[in-house]
């Protein structure tokens, strides 16, 4: 039988086969090693990327509080309703045995435009949830086309059905929508400024991050202005992350891991929201102006308001172009913070001159100076605003009636250097607020200008200095060497400076800082806006991460009797001088009025847009509050700024004795020009302003030019020597104090 054939061939060949087999097994194991061990991490990474979705969890932004812990800016939850269209359509398909309504939509652009037949998600949504939505009268904030396009392109991403709905509606909605899967409510944190326009310039606002995002840590919302911007790094929390698991169809199956976001730090301001409220209310009607209230013993800014202002809530979540246009095109500049912008101070600067003279021992409080209606200094007549001789008067009387001729003489007598030194003691010409990590607390803060002979010399030869610097850096610099300009400081400049005109430019904040030092007896403090920053540590306890202590700037070194004389003078201004309207019964206010003349062009016409000032403190016997009010377009310091000081101080007084302040939501204060005085279109003014205009624009310090733009006070800025005759002949008065009657 064939089966009995001997097995002759097999053995040798099968041996070869077994070797081949072993080699194959070894190769497979080797290849497995390669895939799993050598390249294992590569494949593990690919696995991660296809089964997980990292999601950034936005941290809640920290609050901004006033000094008493009242939140001025915080987060509220915005309740949205999201619809998962795929789920809705799927459920509908199940209940309707797969019969889905269809509709045609146009997709694509241009040539590729074509009609596509898709499931009518809009109709399905209306059938599923329409009743509920109608019952709750939720506004339909989307079009049918938006919904269909969304369903066609991104059915897995929730469609936002309603945004920022009210909590009551939401709770009703949650009750009724329980039966509908695929409709969910979502809470998202949204910035809220609790009191509207209150301290809007200080708080600033937030906006969407613009620019190229870097990684997952890029915040969505960043501070754009004010404290929101400066303290953004503290207010921003730590973003959390959530890793979601998804399957091959992209459905989210669950959460793999989650790291909670950490809420941002809380910034404590020195502002007292109650005083801020009083100030804002007092300033509302004036149209354009600013008011600063400070604690004289610490330099804490208790209130700082600027009108017109804006409601930062309009920037949340994003400002619409109409509102933005309105804000930026408004000629009264609601976005501009006037409390830290520099102005000519007018007579309020006389306090500084008086202090300089007393410190310099030029006069004593009892020294009298003969003050006629005009004095002849530096080749021209310098007039008082009062049409009569004051006679021999001492410092107190001069302050009381804001006598210009007294201070012209006093300024010349004591010398510009002592005035400048006094000004520098207060920090005039410098930024007042401390810097945070090398950044200005309020980036728009202006430094102002304290003019001095040296400054004038430098300014006159600034082109030469720039040329020398360029030449030193680059020996091949070929430009023509500018000539030396021999512009010198004269007593005329000193006169102008003595009454706070001319080149003097000081911010309301600086003036308040000065008044703090006067009120507390001679210690100059840095104004402080931010007390500190706290945040929650890992255990949930509040920890102080940043503290800004009270910082002393300098000592005035004025003896007590002299300081007392200044206090008395300032008190006399309010009791019986130019500032009577500022007085408050039971709360003795002291201060100095001032009116800086200012010309501007409004609708093509030259108008007088005076700056009315009041700079003072209260109470007289136990100073606690320093205040500065400036009103643009005011009639005069006493008549326009005085009543505002009265309102503010009265409010503070009532608050101190136990009155309550209504913290109301402020709508933005509207800017206006009601206080400007039209100047008759006198041809001579046009005539003499024309040539002077050129001089000014070329001579002006670049920074000043930028800030003041066309609103340059031509009269004030003209060189006293060259315009001597004309000014004198026209009897042009500098620093008019309005009568208070």
């Amino acid at each position, binding site marked *: 039988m*064939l*089966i*009995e*054939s*001997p*097995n*002759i*061939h*097999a*053995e040798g*060949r*099968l*041996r070869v*086969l*077994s070797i081949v*087999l*072993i080699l*194959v*097994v070894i*190769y*497979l*194991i080797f*290849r*497995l*090693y390669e*895939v*799993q*061990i050598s*390249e*294992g991490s*590569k*494949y*593990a990474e*690919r*696995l991660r990327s*296809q*089964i997980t979705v990292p999601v950034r969890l936005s941290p809640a932004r920290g609050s901004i509080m006033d000094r008493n812990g009242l939140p001025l800016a915080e987060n509220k939850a915005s309740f949205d309703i999201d619809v998962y269209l795929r789920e809705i359509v799927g459920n509908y398909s199940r209940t309707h045995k797969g019969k889905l309504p269809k509709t045609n939509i146009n997709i694509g652009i241009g040539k590729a435009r074509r009609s596509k037949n898709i499931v009518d998600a809009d109709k399905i949504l209306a059938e599923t949830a329409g009743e509920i939505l109608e019952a709750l009268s939720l506004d339909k904030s989307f079009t049918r086309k938006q919904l269909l396009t969304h369903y066609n392109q991104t059915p897995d991403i929730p469609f936002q059905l309603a945004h920022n709905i009210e909590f009551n509606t939401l709770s009703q909605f949650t009750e009724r929508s329980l039966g509908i899967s695929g409709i969910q409510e979502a809470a998202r944190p949204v910035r809220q400024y609790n009191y509207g326009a209150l301290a809007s310039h200080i708080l600033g606002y937030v906006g969407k991050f613009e620019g190229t995002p870097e990684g997952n840590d890029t915040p969505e919302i960043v501070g754009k202005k004010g404290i929101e911007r400066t303290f953004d790094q503290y207010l921003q929390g730590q973003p959390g992350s959530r890793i979601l*698991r*998804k*399957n*091959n*169809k992209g459905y989210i*199956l669950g959460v793999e891991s989650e790291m909670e976001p950490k809420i941002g730090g809380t910034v404590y301001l020195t502002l007292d929201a109650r005083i801020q409220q009083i100030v804002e209310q007092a300033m509302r009607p004036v149209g354009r102006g600013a008011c600063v209230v400070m604690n004289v013993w610490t330099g804490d800014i208790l209130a700082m308001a600027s009108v017109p202002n804006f409601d930062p809530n309009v920037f949340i979540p994003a400002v619409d172009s109409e509102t933005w246009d309105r804000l930026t095109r408004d000629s009264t500049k609601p976005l501009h913070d006037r409390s830290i912008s520099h102005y000519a101070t007018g007579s309020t600067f006389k306090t500084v001159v008086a202090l300089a003279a007393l410190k310099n021992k030029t006069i004593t409080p009892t020294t009298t100076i003969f003050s006629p209606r005009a004095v002849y200094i530096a080749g021209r007549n310098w007039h008082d605003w009062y049409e009569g001789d004051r006679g021999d008067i001492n410092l107190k009387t001069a302050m009381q009636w804001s006598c210009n001729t007294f201070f012209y003489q006093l300024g010349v007598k004591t010398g510009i250097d002592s005035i400048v030194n006094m000004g520098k003691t207060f920090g005039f010409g410098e930024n007042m607020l401390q810097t945070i990590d090398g950044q200005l607390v309020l980036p728009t803060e202006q430094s102002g200008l304290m003019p001095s002979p040296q400054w004038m010399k430098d300014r006159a030869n600034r082109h030469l200095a720039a040329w020398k610097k360029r030449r030193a850096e680059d020996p091949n610099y070929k430009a023509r060497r500018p000539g030396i300009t021999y512009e010198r400081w004269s007593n005329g400049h000193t006169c102008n400076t003595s009454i706070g005109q001319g080149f003097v430019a000081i911010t309301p904040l600086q003036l308040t800082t000065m008044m703090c030092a006067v009120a507390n007896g001679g210690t100059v403090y840095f104004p402080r806006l931010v007390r500190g920053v706290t945040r929650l540590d890992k255990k949930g306890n509040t920890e102080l991460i940043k503290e800004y202590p009270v910082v002393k700037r300098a000592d005035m070194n004025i003896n007590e009797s002299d300081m007392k004389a200044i206090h008395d003078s300032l008190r006399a201004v309010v009791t019986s001088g130019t500032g009577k309207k500022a007085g408050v019964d039971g709360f003795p206010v002291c201060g100095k009025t001032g009116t800086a003349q200012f010309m501007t062009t409004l609708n093509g016409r030259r108008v007088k847009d005076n700056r009315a000032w009041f700079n003072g403190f209260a109470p007289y016997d136990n100073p606690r509050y320093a205040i500065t009010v400036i009103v643009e377009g005011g009639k005069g310091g006493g008549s326009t700024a005085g009543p505002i000081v009265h309102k503010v101080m009265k409010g503070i007084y009532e608050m101190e004795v136990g009155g309550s302040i209504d913290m109301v939501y402020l709508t933005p204060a509207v800017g206006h020009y009601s206080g400007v005085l039209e100047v008759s279109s006198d041809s001579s003014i046009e005539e003499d302003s024309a040539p002077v205009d050129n001089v000014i624009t070329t001579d002006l310090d670049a920074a000043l030019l930028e800030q003041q733009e066309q609103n340059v006070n031509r009269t004030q800025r003209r060189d006293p020597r060259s315009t001597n005759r004309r000014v004198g002949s026209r009897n042009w008065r500098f620093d008019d104090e309005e009568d208070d009657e």
Partner: protein
Amino acid sequence: MNLSIAQKLLRFHWFALALMLMLCTTGIFFIYSATHLSQEMGLENSARQQCIWLFLGLIGFFTLALINYEWLIQNGPIIFLGSIILLLSVIFFGTEIKGAKSWIRIGPVGFQPAEFSKIAFVVSMSWLMLKFQDRIKKFPTLVLIILVAIIPVGLILAQGDFGSASVYGPMTYLMLVAAGIRKRWLALPIIGVIGICAFAYFGIYKADWNGKVNDIPRCTFDGTLVAMPLISIDPEKLAEKRQALLVNSQEIDEQDTNALQKLWEKQLLKPYQVNRIRTFFEPELDPLGAGWTIRQSLIAVGSGGLRGKGYMRGEQQIYGFLPKDIAHNDFIFAVIAEETGFLGGSILIATIGFLLLFMVQIAVRAKDIGGCLLVSGIGGLFFAHFLVNVGMTIKVVPITGIPLPLISYGGTFLVTCMAGLGIVQSVWIHRRDY
């Protein structure tokens, strides 16, 4: 040599039996792991079904082990005819599943005659080779054997089951080796395989385009997108056309299109085949299309690392990236490698390797050439399935849908494998005693 049942039981190859049972059990466990979450596809009972098939397989195994294999070979022609009838009946009465008409359904039970016919093929070819044993070195004999072998292969190809058909090559080859045909003829297929591999690598993958799949210039014939032909009769002309297409695909006029179409018809490979070969070498070229399966399989295996993710924790199949309908049969090795890591995977490969080595041992110790041929054929079956299945999951061979013996889900194939091992045991039981 007449042995009683008890004597036969004592002469079992215990190692091979143990390995077989180990592999079957492993298979059932991992089939469970791969399917317990697949309710939506109705696969959650796969492991239980596999248990039932395992029981049937054991019956087949012991029956065939205890029968003398000589009896089987003597009935070779009948078995051959039976298998041909079965295969024909599939073509007429079969059920089509996933593009291949290879199932016969009797009531609730379905089976694939193509799998059973593998064993029938081994038995009947053994009969044929023994019949021509004295003329085995003559060329006409070889031709005859190949002609006979082509009959079932052709019928299986007619069902559209390319994977099963391809296994017949190695099976026949190994049987011819054991039968003792001339070595020069044996060398020919090896050279052929090497040549095809080299052509695929150098001629297609490393051919002149280096870009992505999408970079293949396309033109439209009857509204279908077609890739450019690869191997041209006239390379220069083709290059010109290609350039023209690349420069401005809008300006292909009808004449060009016709010319291209003519060129096209002369090509050896269709574009999808070209793409398949290229994506085999580089799955990242088309990660969502032709490269999807191999890519996901590699991710599954590679992410397993040294120790794996743990039983039932294979993320690739849980999240459905390793398609659920093939994870438990064709890609069961990927699931095992992902869950047990390199340690488990290499142990599994070694285990199957040992089983195959035992088969070589059994073939060597067979009493006669008949036994040797049977074991070689069955060994060839196991070896081909093992190499192709494991190889395709780790990118050694292209993706071909054939299962892993004893482990993959699939009742007919499990029973087939166990029956095959039963015959092997029978050969061992009736082995030559020194």
